């Protein structure tokens, strides 16, 4: 393994230990001091500090957090903060360790954020499958209430209050979409709402609401503690701060890596993650969660910032990197992803509901060897070229799930057109036989797990 630069780790310094930091430990290390300090700050001061730091949403869209907070209408109360912990994007697993290991950092972040937006009620909408996370958060919230960090008269200040509710989702990817999260939180079917009005104007229960990702919120106390300039130490163009990269797939050391945005995708895969599994060749990378366009091996020498990845033709998204080696059939991988979006589409609006199902049916058919000439053209016209607004689905749906279902299809065909055509011509998937011969040659047919590879 080549030498790599060791970076200071802020958010998850001891991720390897996988231990929960409970209140006593956290307070001993100076926890909640920032929240105390924030109590004396003007809300505008907190917002301007966050704005100054250049903190951008870590959920996927990368919207500047301070600017989002500034959208709240003046004098409209009550306001709510909803923390989006519905981390369901395939490949993304960065919020889970944050919640499981540093629940109090999250709570402190929520306190600071609520002080900034003058909210007295916050919600954590946690993914239903994160049972342990919810249990840990429940206990941590209870601890914070007991210590008087939450509830009425927080930190002993008369009249300052903040209530925090941990709400578990019921297992729908769509509820990670901010407005669907709100409808779900309200007790309705998790349908995205029509925008405008945006949640900052009319969100939860029709009140101004800010929705932030867990990682975004966790960054807030660090910014307030160390200042915006400290946060801007790690910068690539307009992407600042250390980020958590969840790397999965065919690398030697998959995991969550806390790195600055200047790190390149190549370094991430080959240096930090130890390179490809079994030293296979890299086939393609999905650099920002399952919905973003794919990158080929010659496109990966780009910094992992919003701007860097965009320059390569993809998106940083939730910075979840999925790596696939040369045994992965791109058609199969696409069918897998398309099935996910077909299954997770909420079904509210036409293009996404019908489009995601239709995309899946075609891709699955090609993968199964029943592809027909013209299928690729149909896919292309449905999904476009994997860019916003192109094709029949993207930009026509209520929320971004339609786009998310379409982009991988368009980009996969663009990147691997000849392989799709090969499937249609052969009437079968060439990878199946090829992979068997690989595995036979490597003599590891029996005892290894082939996660992510198609079983013949």
């Amino acid at each position: 393994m080549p030498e790599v630069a060791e970076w200071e780790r802020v958010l998850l310094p001891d991720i390897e230990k996988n231990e929960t930091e409970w209140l006593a430990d956290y307070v001993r290390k100076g926890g909640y001091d920032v929240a105390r300090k924030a109590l004396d700050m003007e809300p505008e001061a907190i917002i301007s500090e966050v704005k100054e730091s250049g903190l951008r949403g870590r959920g996927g869209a990368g919207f500047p957090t301070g600017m989002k907070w500034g959208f709240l209408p003046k004098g409209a109360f009550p306001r709510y903060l909803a923390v989006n912990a519905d981390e369901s994007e395939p490949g993304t697993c960065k919020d889970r360790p944050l919640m499981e290991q540093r629940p109090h950092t999250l709570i402190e972040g929520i306190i600071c954020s609520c002080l900034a937006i003058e909210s007295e009620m916050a919600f954590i909408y946690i993914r239903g499958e994160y049972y342990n996370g919810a249990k840990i958060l429940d206990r941590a919230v209870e601890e914070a209430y007991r210590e008087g960090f939450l509830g009425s008269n927080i930190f002993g200040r008369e009249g300052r209050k903040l209530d925090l509710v941990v709400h578990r989702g019921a297992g729908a990817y769509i509820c990670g979409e901010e407005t669907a999260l709100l409808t779900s939180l309200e007790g309705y079917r998790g349908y995205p709402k029509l925008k405008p009005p945006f949640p900052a104007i009319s969100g939860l229960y029709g009140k101004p609401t800010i929705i932030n990702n867990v990682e975004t919120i966790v960054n807030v106390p660090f910014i307030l503690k160390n200042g915006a300039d400290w946060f801007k130490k790690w910068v690539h163009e307009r992407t600042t701060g250390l980020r958590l990269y969840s790397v999965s797939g065919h690398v030697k050391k998959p995991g969550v890596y806390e790195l600055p945005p200047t790190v390149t995708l190549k370094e991430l895969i080959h240096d930090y993650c130890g390179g490809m599994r079994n030293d296979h060749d890299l086939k393609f990378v999905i650099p920002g969660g399952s919905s973003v366009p794919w990158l080929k091996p010659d496109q990966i020498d780009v910094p992992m910032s919003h701007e860097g990845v965009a320059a390569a033709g993809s998106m940083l998204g939730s910075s979840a990197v999925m790596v696939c080696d040369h045994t992965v059939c791109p058609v199969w991988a696409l069918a897998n992803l398309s099935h996910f979006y077909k299954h997770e589409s909420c079904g509210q609006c036409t293009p996404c509901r019908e489009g995601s199902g239709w995309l899946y049916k075609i891709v699955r058919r090609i993968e199964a060897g029943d592809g027909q000439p013209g299928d690729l053209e149909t896919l292309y016209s449905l999904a476009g070229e994997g860019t916003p607004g192109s094709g029949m689905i993207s930009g026509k749906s209520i929320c971004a799930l339609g786009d998310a279902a379409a982009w991988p299809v368009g980009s996969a065909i663009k990147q691997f057109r000849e392989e799709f055509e090969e499937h249609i011509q052969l009437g079968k998937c060439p990878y199946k036989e090829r992979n068997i011969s690989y595995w036979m040659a490597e003599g590891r047919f029996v005892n290894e797990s082939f996660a992510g590879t198609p079983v013949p």
Partner: protein
Amino acid sequence: MAQVTKGPASGIGATIGYGTPAGKVDQALEGVPEDQILTLTLNGEEVKARRGETIMEVCHRQDTYVPHYCWHPGLSIAGNCRLCLVEVEKVPKPVIACQTQVSPGMVIKTASEQAKASQEWMMEFLLVNHPLDCPICDRGGECQLQRYSMEYGTSHSRMVDKKRKYIKPQADPLIDIERNRCIMCTRCVRFCDEVGGEHVMGVFARGNDNYIGTFGQGPVSNIFSGNVIDLCPVGCLTSKPFRFKARVWELKQTQTTCTQCSSGCKITSWTRNERLYRTTPPSRQRHDHFTINEDTEEFICNQGRFGSDFPWHDSRQHESMVRRADRLVPAPFDDAVAQASQSLRGVIEKHGGEAVAVLISPRATSEEGLLARKLARDAIGTWSVDWRVNQQSAEAADAVSAALKAADGDLESEPDVIIVVNGDIVHQSPVLALRVQELGRRFLKKIVMLGHHHDAYIADHSTLRFHNAPGQTAKVLELLGNVVSGSASVADLASVLSRAEEDVQELVDTIRTAQSGVVVQSLQDFNGRYASAEVPAGGALRAALGETWGWLPVVGERNAVGLNALDCEPGEHGIAARNLLTAISDGRIKGLVVLGADALQPLGNEELVTGALANLETFILADPFESEFSRHATVFFAQAAPQETDGSAFDIEGNVALVKSGVDLPGDARQGWLILNALGRLLAESGFDAGSVEDAWNQVRTELAPESAATLADLELEGSTNPAHFVVRKPQGGARNRASEYNPGNYRTDGLHVRSRSFEAPSVASAKAKDAAAANEGFLMTWGPHVSGRGYLQDRASIAEMLLPKPFLEVHPRDAAELGVKSNQFAVLHVNGRRAKVGIKISKGPAQGTVYMSSGVYGPFDAAENAGPVEVKIEPLDELVPDQGEALMTAEGATESH
């Protein structure tokens, strides 16, 4: 091709969808402050719009059709079909017209390349899983999907994979659900939530596999449920009674008015071969033909929609009959008339004209009413002519008459405050209740509920609710009037209502600060038992409220207002309908002329009535059916059923509308006005010279509005052919005048609106009914009629049993908690020494300590038996009311075909 009774009114036939005459454009922005008006460009044309309007609203006003499925002017915006995507300059993505609000300088293109492509793509998506079963689909010919496919879609589909298929549920007895055809516009779901008032339909499963259905596979239980059939833009929800009976283009459409209740909804009768196939809200012109308008806001109730086919009951009598040697034998109409006049003349000569009474059905048209009155007063010489058969007593009937005479309120003016007094109005005049509810729901008017029973449907959108004990309503109304006029204190009223003074103060403040208002007072509970006290009290309240207020007393009889205005009542000289049976047994009445046997049935139980009929010397009956009553007739005329009659009828708000027959009459049957006219001609020398229904209408018009020149044909006018019905309004601002939009002619200016010009409080000179005794233990059972309850005509509808409401007992939530019962739980009700099993429904309707049930629904609670509130005991059972669909459904859910 569809036959229509009236051709296109203008050259708008070629317009796609809806047109708006030029005047309407300015009208919609009339009175809007200058700073609220902005200018934008629509398809290259500069247009004005109100701030806050959506693109869709502006487009429709400007006669620019934007295709849409999920958007409906009467429902909330869902934005899910994405068919109304249009291009807006400087916006990178196409935007949905139904939800995007206009902004100054916006450049909208509804037919640009981008917009057209988006619409075409959405159509292709919708057809991806839609089966190509148009030839066997009941929606064929009036399907929005078919239409848009032609106008906005492509001619072929690229979809080659297997389509999604669902199991077909049997949830509702009236509405067929074919989920494979559904395009998930959720109109039906929103309709049930918002208009139907019950959250009974929903979206199930997720994503591409989702489908609509009802919770627990139960029926869509509200009285407006049939409207989801018209709202459905595809063949997913179709009418079970109409299924596979006919193709819509083979049916003849007749624009007429419903004859079921006093709401007087405009409807279209779809007939073929002299048979009614279905009833829908008015059809509208589209292209060169008439079809159902999926965007209609004219919702009708299930009774009107499904219960209007009673004329085709097996007991229909086609021939007139005369009595010969104790037997009724068929006779030609002229012979029957001669015989009838002869026998009437006999009675008159023997006992005098006063010994004859004339009874007419409250469903009679105004023409029939006028001729019946003339027959009684001029030809026979009796005062005894009456339509008020449903009221409990002659006093109650008089009170109702006085109330209808004094009535000066309606809902057209969109009053600020609506005080609703008593009554399960949604089950008595359903669409009237819908309009009150809509004023609260969409137009954000304040609704105040008073009385011993509140309409739970309206109460959901009310701001204030005050219950009182049964029989106390008159006192409350009187006191409220005194408080408003300052002669009583709030404390007095609070003590009568047993509520906190602040609450009552809020009520008084609401009323005082209102610019305008209307008192909607139901006189139907206990068939008007307390009417003689409540009518003067309501009138006094109205008088105290001042000129900007109106008073709208409500009864359920179809043409109550018209027959009242035409004075088809005995007054103080004659014998009221309720006293008729006594008068017959006293021997005061020897001859009886009845138009519509449904007027006889409410007078008493069958035995009592037929017993009295047997005592008559002559009994002339005109009725469509053979019945227990017809067997006693001296002469029987085969009469046209209410919906086979031509004429006019008034709704409870005093608006006149055309009733038009869509069929030729069977056999020797005649319309009622013709029978009365022929009879009158033989009995009197003059006054019965109407040669056509138009002549009869002219007599009505001369009497009610001499200054008007409207012909009967004018009444039809725009109701059917005016494409301008489609004016979109926001809840705030903008005049909404449904009557002048939907009804023919501007009858207000024609003077054909029966409402008093200057209010005069009615005086009712009768003894006050006794207050109800307080229940010692248990509950006071209260009741009121139901539009679908048992009745002479209702029972003859082909699906009467399905329309009959289930025996549910409405219980106040606090009482339910005390009893430990839940909604949908069975309970045993002890009433009048009898036991009956009923379902419990927790409702905002009844006051605490009382329970409510519609009469004519369930045998043990016959209205005639229980004259007023009776004491009952409730014994909860550990058993739940089963859902209708449960037994019919075995497996449920989405299955994928591959």
